[in-house]
């Protein structure tokens, strides 16, 4: 029975990916992308990776989809792009192209087909390695938490998670560098939409509590800093959409502190133990649980602020350039 469910889910995912790329209009592509992300999250639940499923549904499907939806108001709504003022040039295109114009398409098709066969064979014949499950299981009691994925993320491979916080911050800085640092206007001309205001007032405390719950439950079940950070970031995005521009009411240095507190405390913690003679990020097992909780809370705050800042900066892009 589970074979049937898994096969149908796999076929659904492939179908949604194909429809995503073949959609003739851009809004269809974006909505198919939402559906594809959620189908992929279901596939991960089937594979027993609930942490990954929450992260995919929240970040890769939810947040990225919101960014694409926001970008829709910039681009023209058809997916066949046309440059403004180039219509008269297309009439002078030569009509007969011959068979050589099909060569790139045929080459691409043949290349992709061969690559598909190679990839299918490689995934079918993946050699058995045993994985690191036994090692993780042996070290889990010393890690300070009870959930193995949280233990790997925040204790065994804490170095990678610290660098990941740096990458998110670097992405925000790169987005700032693309369009220049925006000064957010004090009053946005958003309509006084009663439904939007009600949604905002209702969901802000719900999202906050749910994020705090996910943060704390990461110790013994699926959850953790990233999932909580994304939920808190969605509070910021919702407030921004409702007209309450978060970054224009707090002083600038507060925003900068919130952005960097996760990365810097994590950095201080890791190298504090190096200074004491142990290895980098080697927590003493007695305090490991408490340290992980503090690091996760600060990391979640930083992730939330960074995601809100990314959305706020991209949302400002389509306002008129003031020279």
């Amino acid at each position, binding site marked *: 029975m589970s074979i049937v469910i898994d096969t149908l889910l*796999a076929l659904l995912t492939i179908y949604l990916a194909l429809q995503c*790329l073949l959609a003739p209009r851009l809004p269809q592509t974006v909505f198919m992308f939402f559906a*594809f992300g959620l189908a992929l999250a279901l596939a*991960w639940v089937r594979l027993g990776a609930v942490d990954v499923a929450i992260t995919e549904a929240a970040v890769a499907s939810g947040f990225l989809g919101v960014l*694409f939806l926001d970008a829709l108001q910039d*681009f023209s709504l058809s997916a066949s*792009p046309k*440059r403004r003022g180039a219509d008269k040039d297309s009439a002078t295109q030569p009509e007969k192209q011959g068979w050589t114009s099909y060569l790139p398409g045929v080459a691409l098709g043949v290349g992709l087909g061969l690559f598909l066969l190679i990839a299918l064979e490689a995934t079918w014949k993946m050699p058995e390695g045993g994985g690191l499950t036994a090692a993780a299981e042996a070290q889990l009691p010393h890690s300070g938490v009870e959930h*193995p994925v949280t233990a790997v993320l925040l204790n065994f491979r804490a170095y990678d998670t610290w660098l990941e916080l740096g990458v998110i911050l670097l992405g925000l800085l790169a987005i700032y560098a693309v*369009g220049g640092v925006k000064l957010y206007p004090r009053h946005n001309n958003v309509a006084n939409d009663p439904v939007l205001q009600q949604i905002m007032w209702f969901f802000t405390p719900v999202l906050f509590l749910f994020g705090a719950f996910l943060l704390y439950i990461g110790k013994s079940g699926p959850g953790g800093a990233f999932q909580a950070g994304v939920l808190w970031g969605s509070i910021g995005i919702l407030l921004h959409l409702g007209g309450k521009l978060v970054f224009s009411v707090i002083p600038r240095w507060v925003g900068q502190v919130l952005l960097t507190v996760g990365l810097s405390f994590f950095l201080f913690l890791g190298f504090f133990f190096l200074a004491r003679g142990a290895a980098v990020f080697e927590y003493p097992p007695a305090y490991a649980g408490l340290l992980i909780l503090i690091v996760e809370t600060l990391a979640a705050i930083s992730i939330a602020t960074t995601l809100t800042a990314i959305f706020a900066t991209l949302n400002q892009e389509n306002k008129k350039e003031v020279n």
Partner: protein
Amino acid sequence: METYQIYSLTSAVLFVIGLGGVFVSKHFIKKIIATTIMGGGVFLAFVSFADRDALSFADPVPHALVITGIVVAVASASFALALARRIFQLSGDESFSSDK
């Protein structure tokens, strides 16, 4: 045919779909979405092999790698989106080709 084998095969198909989409799509947003689909395929391969190596729980190290990978992919995709919107704002181009 076990559970993880079904998903590892679809991960290969998803990767090829994404790769084809990067080459074939003309619009910037579709290219970015195609790279995200490629990333989804790779992560699905990781997690399906983590499920194969499960004892009492699934192998947590690939799960942690995939969570990190998802967040990094989202950061780079949002940067690519910012670049695409800036290009559109400055020149009105929605794709790399200048004809049609």
